């Protein structure tokens, strides 16, 4: 931006010099007056900008999602509610990937016309998945010759998710050989899919399946009542991403995101209902995933909350809140083996980590950003 302003000053000075020389040579007061008009024009325009700056509203327009490595267009709109034009809008937009922590800036400029919308656009292309947040770092409007700047305050914000390129690991889930008939280990606070054990009764809503309708009660109460199934612990799966283990590079964050999403995607494709959890700097987020749609809805918010490295690990946060993970299978993804893992889960745990050594029984799988797809071709749960 500084270069642009300097260039404008240089151009104006050049024009004034030319006009001044012409005025001296021709001894014409009119030409001299013309030379004075330009700085006067700049001054008047700069004063007008003081009023215009309060009427300019900035906003971003960007697609909700985009693929990795594909360029997408992000537009910054400048709506001028004033009846006078300004010279030009110059602004620096900062884009941050919440997941990987990458930050980039881009300089945009656009004309500012009266009572109309001006646009400035930039192409965004990321090799890493994540959640992109675009903000206006600095915005100024210039006077007509482009000499003076007036700052514009704006809290415009644009958000979009860069979805990961998922691969397709083959996941084999091993069911224990003996299942006691009276195994009543259901989750007390999570509903599930096992209708044989009623978790709760409630009124019918549109998305409920007809299989859930409790016909007897419905007949008695003269309104549709449905039952929610319980979640049998033995058959439940938790896919947990501990993002607080240590700080990660953008490539490691991208790799972990792809692994996590790929595993979840495959489970959804297999028709398996599972619990998805991930840690944030403040705590843990747990979501029930019934199908791919649920997963796609969770991914943006999952990427939005960045990875943290200070404070307790994700598993520690989980156990502090929920206690031990009572699930049949637990898949934990982490950058390094987090403290408190024993209290979190054991026996039913598959750990996917960037650090450490793989175990022969595949309870610990080590991956790197370069080879994670190959390492996770087949997973035994």
């Amino acid at each position: 931006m500084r270069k642009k302003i300097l260039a404008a000053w240089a151009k104006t000075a050049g024009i004034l010099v030319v006009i001044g020389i012409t005025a001296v040579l021709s001894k014409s007061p009119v030409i001299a007056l013309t030379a004075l008009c330009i700085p006067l024009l700049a001054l008047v325009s700069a004063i007008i900008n003081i009023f215009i700056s309060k009427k300019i509203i900035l906003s971003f327009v960007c697609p909700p999602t985009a693929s990795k490595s594909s360029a997408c267009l992000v537009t910054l709109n400048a709506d001028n509610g004033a009846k006078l034009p300004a010279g030009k809008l110059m602004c620096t937009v900062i884009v941050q990937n919440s997941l990987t922590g990458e930050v980039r800036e881009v300089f945009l400029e656009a004309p500012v016309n009266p009572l109309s919308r001006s646009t400035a656009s930039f192409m965004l292309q990321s090799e890493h998945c994540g959640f992109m947040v675009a903000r206006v770092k600095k915005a100024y409007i210039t006077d007509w010759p482009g000499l003076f700047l007036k700052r514009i305050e704006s809290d415009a914000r644009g958000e979009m998710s860069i979805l990961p390129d998922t691969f397709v690991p083959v996941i084999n889930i091993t069911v224990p050989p003996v299942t006691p008939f009276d195994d009543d280990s259901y989750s007390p606070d999570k509903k599930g899919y096992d209708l044989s054990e009623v978790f709760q009764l409630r009124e019918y809503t549109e998305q409920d399946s007809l299989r859930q309708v409790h016909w007897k009660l419905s007949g008695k109460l003269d309104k549709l009542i449905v039952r929610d199934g319980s979640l049998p612990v033995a058959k439940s799966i938790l896919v947990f991403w501990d993002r607080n283990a240590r700080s990660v590079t953008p490539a490691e964050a991208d790799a972990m995101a792809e692994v996590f999403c790929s595993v979840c995607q495959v489970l959804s494709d297999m028709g398996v209902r599972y619990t998805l959890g991930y840690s944030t700097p403040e705590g843990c987020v747990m979501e029930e995933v019934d199908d791919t749609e649920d997963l796609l809805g969770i991914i943006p918010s999952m990427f939005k909350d960045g990875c943290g490295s200070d404070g307790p690990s994700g598993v520690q946060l989980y156990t502090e809140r929920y206690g031990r993970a009572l699930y049949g299978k637990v898949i934990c993804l982490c950058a390094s083996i987090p403290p408190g893992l024993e209290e979190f889960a054991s026996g039913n745990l598959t750990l996917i980590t960037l650090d450490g050594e793989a175990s022969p029984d595949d309870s610990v799988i080590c991956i790197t950003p370069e080879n994670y797809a190959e390492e996770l071709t087949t997973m035994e749960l």
Partner: protein
Amino acid sequence: MKRNDNAALRLTAYRETGETEKIGYPLILSAMLITGMLLVFIPAFESIHSSPWVFALAGALLCLAMIRLFQGRFGDTGLIGSVVLGAVFAAAFFGKVKSGSLMLTNDFLGFLSTKTGHIYLAFETGEASDVYWVLGVMLFILCAFIAKASLASSSVFLLLPLALLAAGTAAGFFSVNAGTVILASALVLMALRRLQLRADPACPEGSLWIHTAAAALCAVIIISGFFLAGLRTDGMISSVKRAYHEYVYDEDTNSMPEGYLSDLPAWEPSNAPALAVTADEWSKLYLRGFTGEVYTGTSWESLDTEVLAEYSDMFYWLHDGGFFAQSSIASAMEATGNDGPVKMEIENISACEKYAYMPCSAVVNTLMDPTLIGDSVTEGKRYEVLEYYPGSIPEWYALQHLVSARQSSEETKGYLLSEQQYRDFVYEKYLQITPTAVATLKKYLDSDEKSRSLTDIRKIILKVLDEKLTYDENASVPSGKTDFLTCLFEQENKGYSVSYATAAVLMLRYYGVPSRYVEGYYLSGEDASALSSGQRVILDEYHAHAWAEYYLDGVGWIPFEVTPGYVDESEFELGEAGSEGNVAYSHNELVYAPAIQPQPLEEVSGPRMSFKITRPFVYVLLALAASAFVTLCAIRRRRLRKALEKIGSSDNRSAVAMLYGYALLLLQKASITDEEDEAAKSLNREAMFSDHEMSDISREEMEDYVERVKEMCRQKWNFLRRFYYRFVNCLYL
């Protein structure tokens, strides 16, 4: 694959194609338009002393500011606001703006004088710098129109200034210079831009410079073509003028060529009555009609108005003081205390209506147009009542002596003061002769430097004419484009009064005697003596005649008769030295009193006579602008009809699609954005993308939809907008 984390997130500023030219084209266009217009406009006005480039620079900057201002929704009111602002400024500084306007008007009146040969009095103005006030207002308003036109790529907004410039250039007020080329380039560029926008609204930026270069080339070619064509149109223009003159003023019986000598035909007079003259007292009459002052080789012409315009001040003061050269003899008579004039009535029956036929010694002070520069043209009327002093050439020679003798009297002094000014003018302008004619005359006349008296000159001329020419009324002189005199003396050697008069005038001028060629009607002394007082005499075409006139110092224009059969030997002999009872005149040795230096002609302080700008010119300009506007509307209307006819004659599928497009256009113009009919949209989609023919019912449904849309638009628009879209923009019938 190892990834480069540093380049993993890339942001690139994106610029849509055509964004630069959204302002680039209007900027270039407006800069060219304002520069071209000012370069043409400014040099035409002498009151503006600054360089036109200064104004062009200021105008370009102003256009840039206005283009920025007019972009967006503000454009609709910006133009009107600018005009209002300019008007308010003009009202606030009305005195200075008015003074400046009058200065520009005075410059224009000076130009009009050179074109019409009339005197136009200048308006009183203030300081010289006042002209910049009105220029500022005009520049501001003009820039607003140019900015709007550039943004819209439409020349509609420039119709009035362009019409004014075109009219001024055609009339010769504005000269063709670099500004004309720049302006023409801008208009061509605007047309190209408009065509391209129609073909492809998202046109690439690179075409801006290509278009500009193409436009400049077109303009240079067009202007060069006009110049080349102009060089060849002089003959055509004079032919057109002559044909117009004959159609408006002449009758078929007119036998005199009115100065047109090329291929002079034989004289074919008739008994058709030309003039009816009634006088209280009769004498030999030379009734002047056409007067030829400039010999071109193929014709006698009047002095050029641009030449005459230099003497506008002199003639203003001469006329204001009552001196008219057509009646200088009468003025001399009055100054020397002669008896009063007698009455004469002249009725034009079939003579050329452009001229008034008046005797040499007529009193025409009240009949001449005082605003006319020069005194050789008297505009004709059907019926004229005037006074004149009966007299003859010898009496006018005697008048010269009388003037000389009485030059100390107040009346004579006053008369001579004016006559001397006119005499100087005559000696400057009435000695013109072509080099070809000089070369011819040198063969027959002495070319020594010896000064000769008028009498000797007259004798030489008559002798030469007697030797070289034979009078023959049936003689024609097929000179074509060659010099008439050369053809006459070296080939034909015969002719009638026109030939004799032309030769005599040229020979007089050869010897340094100011002279001119005159056509009119002649009544001989013999015929006149047979007439009684108050008798009405009819002069027919047999009385049509051409003669030479020379300027007798102190008296005025005197006829010099050289045509055989018309020469009055008694007059010729009169004036010889020693003739008894007559004025002794050997040669022109009359000495006037020491020249009284006339007072310099200064403007009187205080207003001259009141004067108004000629209305016809304003009406012509308004008519031009109105006709241009009407033509534009007519073209648009025709275009609309053709488009509707095309829809009507198309097959159902094309008609449905075109009608839908038309409906969308109407909705867009009325800014109705949420009234799209789903059924119509579906019909359009079917017409565009299906592979089957559309039914007549579908077509009718679409036509009904269009009518409904029209009705919606009409309801939305106010009266002015309805009028505009119907009759000006021709959006619907």
